[in-house]
């Protein structure tokens, strides 16, 4: 069953007098349990496509359906709730809340969704354990390494059981050891929990682990290869 369906989507930016077609007629779908990467040179439209899938941006043409929701029909306030309920985000520069502890960062979206306290604690402990950071419960982001921060970001993204996780260059700021460790965790979550991951990346290590590699150039898909399942 398709978690994400992208039908002939366009995204055009009007930068002063120049028209930039960041996404140019992309049709694509992602199934539950996909571990897919979107690759392509800089400016090919990877991040724009990810933003469109995540409901952070609206296409100028075509439609995107996620878990049966047509994103173009949602009002801005509904889009925010939609993101909270259906999408997990992992950003290149971690983007944790610096004044909160690791556990508070993981529990942040659960808190926004008003989960019962007990349930929040249980889920937070479970996630910290699955990303191998049970012992850093009360550490602030500034007390963690880049790799550890990104693992907390993954745990935060997974917390409320979203439909899929969008990870924009998640390993770009990590050393190779931390990147491998993070990818192992993500792969494990994909295999054991069936979590769908959609990456945008330049990183060969991510591509090697991916089950599907989609190549974008000038806003168009030039290849879509399934490497393993």
């Amino acid at each position, binding site marked *: 069953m398709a978690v994400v369906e992208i039908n002939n989507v366009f995204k055009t930016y009007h930068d002063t007098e120049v028209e930039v077609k960041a996404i140019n007629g992309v049709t694509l779908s992602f199934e539950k349990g996909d571990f897919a990467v979107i690759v392509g040179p800089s400016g090919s439209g990877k991040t724009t496509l990810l*933003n469109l899938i*995540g409901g*952070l*941006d609206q296409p100028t043409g075509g439609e995107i359906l996620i878990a049966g929701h047509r994103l173009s029909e949602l009002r801005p*306030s509904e889009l*925010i*709730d939609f*993101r*909270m*309920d259906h999408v997990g*985000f992992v*950003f290149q*520069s971690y*983007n944790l*809340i*610096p*004044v*909160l502890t690791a556990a508070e960062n993981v529990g*942040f*979206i659960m*808190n*926004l*969704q008003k989960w019962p306290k007990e349930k929040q604690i249980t889920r937070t402990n479970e996630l910290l354990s699955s990303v191998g950071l049970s012992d850093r419960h009360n550490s602030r982001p500034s007390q963690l390494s880049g790799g550890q921060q990104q693992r907390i970001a993954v745990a*935060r*993204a997974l917390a409320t059981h979203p439909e899929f996780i969008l990870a924009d260059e998640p390993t770009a700021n990590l050393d190779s050891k931390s990147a491998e460790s993070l990818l192992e965790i993500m792969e494990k979550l994909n295999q054991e929990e069936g979590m769908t991951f959609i990456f945008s990346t330049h990183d060969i290590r991510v591509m090697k682990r991916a089950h599907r590699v989609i190549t974008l150039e000038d806003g168009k898909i030039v290849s879509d290869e399934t490497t393993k399942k």
Partner: protein
Amino acid sequence: MITSLAWKNVWRNKIRSLIVITAVTIGVFAGVFSLAAINSTVIQRIDAAVNEELSHIQVNNKNFRSSSDIQNIISDYPGVVAALKSTPWVTKVTGRIIIRGIASTAAKSVGVEITGVDVEKEKEIFTLSEKLIPGTGSYFETDTKFNTVFIGEKLAKELNIIRYIITPEAVVKLKDQGVPANIISKIETLQGQRFTSEKKFIKAYEKLLDAREIQKYEWKIREAAWSYREGSRIILSFLDVNNDQTGAAFRVSGIFRTNNDMFESLSLFVPIEELRQLTGMKEGTYHRVIAKLENNDLTNKVTPVIREKLKDVEVLNWKEIQPDLAMMADFMGQIYAIFMVIILAALAFGIVNTMLMAVLERTRELGMLMAIGMNRRKIFIMIMLESIFLSIVGGFAGMAVSELMIAITGKTGINLMKYSEGMEAIGYSAHLYPTIDAQFFITTTILIVLTGIISAVYPAHKALKLNPVEAIRGE
């Protein structure tokens, strides 16, 4: 959670937040404390005027104020007293005889207002008896066959009753007060001389000391050299009921000191029986009836009630007798408002500036929060709360420091002796006891919180305008 996140965000940049909070604290303290100091001058002046000079209500013969003829008495004194006593909130009533005359000593003559008072009743209404300078006698408590008079320090100086002498005791007093030995040795050269006026004494020590020494020690020197011989006499001359010149010698019963030079130099008090005997005024005749109310705030309420009862006489309250005081009391409200606007405007600009910086600094983070599902209402509330916390912490710290300083200086006083001559010439004390009422603190607290809320609107609105995609990119 939003509240706790907002609170944590306030302390994210501790130095910046502390600087803003300190600025707010100093601003609030400076405003509130200055206001308390100004307020104290007005309150002290009003208290002094009401409790030492005027009381709340005065009833006179209708012609008395325009012509202080001894014949302008209150025709129905018992009726006036009964009407006043039956009026709610009137607590005490007494009558006075008031005549104009001349006070003389061998050295000088001065025009004065001689007030004949019922000593016991006056003590219940006025606090003048408590203003007696220690060592100058008493408030008519000396058992003597002579006529007695209670006079102000200023008048005593003008009549040369008070003199300035550097005695060995004065030197010891100066040492005790910490005056340096070199100053004392200069002043000691004046030993043995009697200065019959303050002016002569000032001239003498000004030749011995430099300007800085004078500025620092002159009050201590004057105080130490201040000398008064108990039982000094003055002659009072005035017209009797037949308009014949009369008068008598009066022994000074005591000397009072207030903060009003004008009052001190013009008013003197004698027991009413002595004045009645000398003027030939009949028993039961009075020029003025004084009424004291439960408190100052009742003045406007009670005056028309009394006026309605006493249509044949002139009824005046303290605000009408001294309109400058009434104006000052009313003006205080406007001064409060002006100060509050200044304090709150400074607070608002500080908060807006800090919060705008905080929003701009956290653009990426705010974008991330929007991306992961924190809606705009929650972001708005979070920024508002951060501003409110900053205002409240700074505002309350300012209020606490103000309250503490007002409590301390309210007891110890602020000494402005350097300006005492100028201030006392217009009736104000050179010793301020800052005070402010509780209502002001409550109003200020509410206004600080409101200012925090209003100041937060613009930065919070700015945060709402962020586009999550651009914000995450850090644009």
